[in-house]
Structures are given as C-alpha cells and as structure tokens.
C-alpha cells in the first residue's frame, strides 16, 4: 500500500496520462467502429437472409456461410488469421486497420445473428396481415416487424457491445496499443501491476458504463410498444 501511494505521483505524469488516453481512444474506436459497422451491416445481412426472392438465393447462402463461420472462430484466432493474411499478401501493415477490420467482421456476424433472431421472434400472423394488405417486405419490416423486434434485439445487442469493449483487449496480441497493452507496458516499466491494471479497470468501466446507460435508454425509447 505504501509503495502504491509512493508510485502514484510518478505514475500520473502528463506523459503517462496522454499515453493512457490514447490507448483508451484506440479501445473506444475499435469498439465503436465495430459496433456501428456490425449493427448496420449485420442488420442488412439479417434483412437479406430473410427475403424469399430467388434472385437473392446465392447472396443468402453466402450470408449464412459467413455468419456461421465467424461466429464459430474464436476472436483471437480470426485476429491472427487476418494479421497473417494481411502480412503475407502485403495488403497493409497498419495494425489498427487490421484490428478494426477483424472487429467489424466479427461484430457483423454476431449482431447479424441477434437481429435475425429478433426478426424471427415476431409471429408469422403479423407478416400474413401485412402481406394481405399489400405491404412489401421492406414496408413490413419498417412499419411492423422492427418496431416490435427492438424489444428482443436491443438487450442482447447492447450486452454484446459491452462484452466487445473488453474483447478488444485481444487486439494487444497483434501489437495494437489499446488499454490492455498500455497497462502491460506501464507494468513492464516498473509500475506495480495493481496500479497499472487497476487504472485501466477504471478506464474500462468509464467506457462501458455510459454505453450500458445508453442501451437502457434505447430500450425504453424503442422497445416499448407504445411509440
């Protein structure tokens, strides 16, 4: 404890604070980009996957293959896979770019699946009633299915987002300087692990807590049937 108190002034120097803030920014960006891309592209995939059009059959098949593969590979494995593919094919050696792409690919597969099951949770009778009144597929989704499905989609989606903030720590494995990696470096510099990792624990909390509140807010706003 004494050692901890002694270390604190040296730990929170301006350089270290900037260093941690940058790392926190990387964690935040990885999560935010992953979730935004995952939600929008995943939503589109879910919408296409549920169409009945014959023309989109190959697309639907690809979507199912993609979703099933990337939901089954551990995050770290896909991260390393992308890392080496990018290296071998000399596409890019920008670590942040590689991590972002991996994060988007994984998030899309997961969130697409959450949205698909949300759509499927709505009773067929709602589709029948809409079809009998000449609603198109997209009109039915917009006016009838999604307003009811948010209730089913949002809680697991935000649960996934919050889990995802923490999963981005794995990007440290390919050398992306995010929060966990930053703590490791500070620890290696001689600061006590309790201080280094304790600090990022608080920073992770600061990132995830507002997201959690935002999720609750969206649930209240969108998921009630009374909108």
């Amino acid at each position, binding site marked *: 404890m004494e050692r901890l108190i002694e270390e604190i002034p040296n730990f929170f120097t301006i350089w270290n604070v900037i260093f941690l803030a940058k790392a926190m920014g990387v964690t935040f960006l990885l999560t935010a980009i992953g979730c935004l891309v995952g939600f929008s592209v995943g939503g589109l995939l879910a919408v296409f996957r549920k169409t009945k059009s014959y023309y989109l059959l190959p697309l639907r098949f690809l979507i199912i293959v993609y979703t099933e593969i990337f939901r089954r590979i551990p995050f770290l494995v896909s991260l390393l896979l992308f890392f080496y593919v990018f290296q071998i094919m000399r596409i890019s050696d920008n670590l942040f770019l590689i991590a972002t792409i991996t994060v988007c690919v994984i998030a899309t597969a997961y969130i697409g699946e959450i949205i698909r099951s949300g759509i499927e949770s709505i009773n067929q009778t709602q589709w029948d*009633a*809409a079809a*009998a*009144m*000449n*609603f198109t597929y997209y009109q039915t989704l917009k*006016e*009838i299915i999604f*307003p009811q499905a948010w209730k089913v989609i949002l809680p697991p989606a935000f649960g996934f987002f919050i889990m995802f903030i923490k999963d981005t720590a794995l990007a440290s494995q390919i050398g992306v300087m995010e929060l966990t990696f930053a703590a490791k470096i500070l620890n290696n510099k001689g600061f006590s692990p309790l201080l280094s990792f304790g600090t990022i624990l608080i920073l992770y909390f600061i990132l995830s807590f507002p997201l959690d509140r935002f999720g609750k807010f969206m649930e209240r706003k969108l998921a009630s049937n*009374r909108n």
Partner: protein
Amino acid sequence: MENLWRESLHQIEIKSANAFYEKLHVLKDIDLNIDKGEIVSLIGPSGSGKSSLLKMLVGLLIPKSGKVFLNKSLINFDNQSDLRNIREQIAIVFQQYNLFQNMNVLKNVCIAPTKIQKRNPKEVNEQALYLLEKVGLQDKLKSYPDELSGGQQQRVAIARALCLNPQILLLDEITSALDPELVKEVLDSIRLLASEGMTMLIVSHEMNFVKEVSSRVVFMDDGSIIEVNSPKNIFEKPKEKRTLDFVGKILKEK
C-alpha cells in the same frame, strides 16, 4: 341463356384448386363460384380447409394446381402484380385478428389505406373514425391491441378490413370471440354491407348466424367441398350423409 347470365355474375371462380401446407393436402379439387353481392358461408369441422380456402384467395396460400378467376381474369399467383391486384380487391379478417401490436387502434385501421393505397390521410382518418364508431370503439382509438378484449380486437380487425374499401370481404370465424350483445351489432353491419353489394365469404361455427345471413352454405370436410346448398336445405334436408352427421352433431350440442 339462363346459364350465361348467371356465369356473368361470378366474381370469384375457383376451378379444381389444390393446395398444400408442406406435404399436407389442405385443399382438394375445390370448385366454387361466388357471385357479386352474395354471402357464402363455409362450415365444417376444424381442419377441414375453410381457413385455407380464405387464405388462398388472398395469396397467402399458393395453389399447386387449378385455376382461380377474379372478375373473369385468371390469377397468376406467381406474379407479384396479380397478387397486389387481388389483395386490393379482397380484404380478409383473420381468425386471430392479427392486429399490428405496435400500433394503436386508429393507426391499425389507417396505415394500409394511407401508406399502401396512398389515399388522402384526412379522408382515411374520417372513414376510420366512422367505421370504428360503427363497431362501437370510438372511445378506444388510442388503445393498443394488448389492452383490448378479443371481441374488441375482432371489431378493430373488421374496421381495418373495411377501411381498405374492398369489393370482397373474407371473414374467418368472426363471431367466435364476440360478446352475445355484440354479435347482433356485427351481424347488422354485415347485413348492411351485403345490401350495399359487398361480396362476402364467411367461415363460421355460429349456425344461427349462417342460417340467417347466407345466400348459400358450403360444407367442407377434409379439404374437399362436400356440399353446396341453400341455408334452409343444408340444415333441414342435406344431400350428403357427411353433412347430415356434421349438422346433426352441431345442432345437438346447442
């Protein structure tokens, strides 16, 4: 000559239609003509294909073989514009009402006429208010389906179907969820609609209702039409033994 005259009145003609749910043969060689302004009732045990027949007429169940004509033109069920066309002319009230759970009563009635038929919202609103008043729900406009009783939801569904201004109305078991005092109101509205020339195809277990309103009664069993007869004859002297058994059983239960 007489025959030709009658034929020209057929609004719906179904010729040896067969339909399946997966492998289940739910409609077997259905032949039925319905004239303009006629009220045809479908009776028969559960699972006899009554609801399937209604669903086929709005394209929710696609027939495997056979022909369906609406106002003399053959319907191609694989063609989207044909489907749109039949759904513009035929409205259905489902047995489970199928109200949109995320919309209040007024919105349920107004959404399709405004968004799909692109009619003037003010006009639609007026018509919706008129129809909802007619079914006695003027004080429930802002309620959501899950706040209503089955009978109330049923009446919203009827108003919703009528607000589409269909030529033909299909009603699936509409009296089953209604309170006795409302049955009369709904029956009166249906009679009024009939006098205005609306063609109706009604699935019902209410034999008194069937007897009273129908111009013809169709008895179905196991996916086939067994007998088509006048309401008087079908209850008093049916041609087929299966009809007699069914009607006898139903009347005995009363």
